[in-house]
């Protein structure tokens, strides 16, 4: 029985790690300036944990094979528990220290570093089950949000009051996010009902959109293309269908797009 256990566990271990080695299912290529840090951190962690996973499963398999059934004399681990405990603390301690130092830098670049002072500021509003985006228009100022004016019925997703707020008059509200390539973007995330989430796998960024909070998030996209923005926070029955697109454009294309929107 010990041999069967050993063989089964070796097969399970090898089959489990094969798709990781082969990159069969893998993150899509990153398109943000901070994404490579995340990927590097992912690789480091995969290597470190891969060694731990394979070696510990194989040691378990090998020991079960070697010490099964036979009425041999009982043996004890040479040196007792102390070296084993020390080994565990040192190995995992080194792993933790290295992951924390490198990983914290990756995290800090995304979430703790201030946004570029010339970043393009866009507002995002989430609701059951859609995203909306707001550009400040030629005046560069967003009109204030009035919750009592928010209405899906008349398309006032941000609760703007152009009649009384001058700044709101030129605000542009659209259902998909268009941004210029290689330009720092500062998104302010709002939600009007549930907790939603702004997740673009290619950006390697994820941030909850919480009612009552205005959460800043900044990034720079480096590759032109169309990417899916999906909601990852359970927000109700249509959660699975809540998505929008993020279109990364060249600067001239973006300028044309913006002009078209203001013209509407």
């Amino acid at each position, binding site marked *: 029985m010990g041999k069967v*256990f050993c063989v089964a566990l070796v097969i399970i271990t090898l089959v489990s790690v094969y798709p990781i080695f082969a990159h069969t299912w893998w993150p*899509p290529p990153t398109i943000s300036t901070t994404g490579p840090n995340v990927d590097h951190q*992912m690789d480091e962690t995969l290597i470190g*944990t891969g060694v731990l996973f394979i070696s510990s499963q194989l040691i378990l398999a090998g020991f079960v094979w070697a010490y099964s059934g036979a009425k041999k004399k009982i043996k004890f681990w040479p040196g007792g528990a102390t070296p084993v405990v020390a080994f565990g603390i040192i190995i995992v301690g080194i792993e933790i220290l290295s992951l924390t130092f490198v990983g914290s830098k990756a995290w800090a670049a995304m979430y703790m570093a201030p946004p570029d002072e010339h970043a393009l500021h866009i507002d995002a509003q989430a609701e059951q089950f859609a995203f909306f985006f707001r550009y400040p228009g030629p005046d560069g100022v967003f009109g204030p949000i009035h919750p009592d004016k928010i209405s899906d019925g008349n398309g006032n997703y941000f609760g703007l009051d152009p009649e009384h707020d001058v700044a709101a008059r030129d605000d542009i509200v659209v259902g998909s996010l268009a941004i210029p390539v290689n330009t720092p973007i500062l998104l302010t995330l709002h939600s009007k009902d549930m907790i939603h989430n702004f997740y673009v796998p290619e950006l390697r960024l994820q941030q909850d959109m919480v009612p*009552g909070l205005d959460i800043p998030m900044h990034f720079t996209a480096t590759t032109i293309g169309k990417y899916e923005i999906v909601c990852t926070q359970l927000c109700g029955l249509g959660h699975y269908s809540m998505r929008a697109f993020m279109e990364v454009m060249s600067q001239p294309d973006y300028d044309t797009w913006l002009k078209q929107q203001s013209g509407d």
Partner: protein
Amino acid sequence: MSDASAQPEVHHLAPPTGFIRKHVFSLDHKVIGLQYYGLALAAVFIGMVLSWLFRIHLGWATAAIPGLQLFSPNGAPGGLITPEYYLSLLTMHGTIMVFFVLTNAPFAGFGNYFLPIQIGAEDMAFPRFNMMSFWTTFAAFLVMMAAFFVHDGPPISGWTAYATLSSIGKDAGPGEAMGQNLWAVSIALFCIGQLLGSLNFIATTLDLRTKGMTLSRMPISTWAWFITACIGLLAFADLLPACILLILDRTAGTSFFNPAGMVVSDNLQPHSGGSPLLWQHLFWFFGHPEVYIAIIPAFGIVAHILPTFMRKPLLGGMRVLIGCLIAAGFLSYMVWGHHMFVSGMNPYSAILFSVPTLIITIPFTVSTLIFLGSIYGANLRFTSASLFSLGFISVFISGGISGFFLAQPSLDTYLHATYFVVAHFHFVMAVAAIFGIFAGTYFWMPKMIGRMMNEGLGKLHFWLTFIGVYCIFMPMHYLGLAGNVRRYSAFTDNYLIPLIPVHKFITIAALLTGAAQFIFFYNLIHTRWWGVQAPDNPWDATTLEWSTTSPPPFDNFGGRHLVVRQDPYEYSVEGAATDFIMQTATDTIAKH
């Protein structure tokens, strides 16, 4: 056995005579332990069927499940699961499994039955509290089940019940009216039951140990239940008020979790001043320790079983392992924020929560190394119990490894809320704890019901389950790496569509592995009525539960007050007549 050193005494409670007192409202910890175990069995069956239903839906979104419309005409018209009913099934699966299975079976079930026996007590410290604890839990279960039968069905907010989806009321969606109320009431009741149980476990361990049963001679399983009770006392004392606040927000117009200015279905909500993050802090302050409430008893059970089938004590005695469990329990209260890296809390706090989360891997790595080092040089005996114990080590390694990823905010920003998380917590919390429950069942059922379980069926059950869980949960890591978001009832996003075949594979594996559990159910039922009579000590084990009859008499030891003279795992001691020395043995033999 040379343990009858005291005069026979009568249990301070007379043995019950009537059916109700004996089998229903029993004060006997053994009956209550079996009641908890039975409740967990019923719950795990329901939880498993729910997972089958939503797994079928995930693999084949347009497939109708014949007959389901009879159970839920609104949720599954024509047998086709609606998106909201998918979320209901998911919510109820998670809730039932985490609370009524993973907390009930390894802690309340086995703990109630064996903690008093392992320390030589005749019952728990507070038998009436004990009965109340079970029946409160049972009431919680009935209230939870009632959610299936209310008009708009069970809640859809997941087992984590995040505000504001859970706190607004019916405007938030189907299931968020009466269904969510029942959920909150049920969990509040469950907390009361667990608080009573935890107090009882702690008092019993500290006060009722028999003569000679010092703390260092307590079996590791009893240590694990004791540590778990200490964790539970804090954790459930946190979740109970959180549920009360949730009920108030939902029914009394308060605003603990609801901020001002929310507009739901074009209705401006009459709230102000609350914070949805408050629920997350309260929930995860309970939720992370809850993982250890599920896993530490399983750890204790496996560490208790392995020496018997290795015929040698654990490496380093029990002290290293006990130290690891205490360290993990302590750290479990400092890491709740790792569930909230992307929640909108201050990003600096992510580092603060990440470090202790990574540090928590140290006690668990050391425990795993202790297990591996203990197997070195053993005389392994293969039974269903030992196979599940060895399987536990493997699945715990698999689940623990993925923790390194999720503990890091810089990776959580990609992996958060993906199937990678589902894979992680199922391996480390669910599958590992279930393996502990199975190991405990095959090991202790002869003592609990006085009959031996069928070993052939037990081993078949192990192999199918062991391979099955890897087929179900390992591919979920790959889905997570590809960015597959969890809690989606259908995969309509362009980048998710190519992943559907993986979901189909997982569904088939889940159905087959689930079907294999009927071997276990059959074995259990067959053993109960037709199993071979169990001897008092079928495994040549050493601890006090094997010093009494199978099953034990009402007062556990037939009026004897045992005196403990040995450490709990004295196997293969040189010079001893047998390769095991009972804890009550008077022999003085050189220790290792």
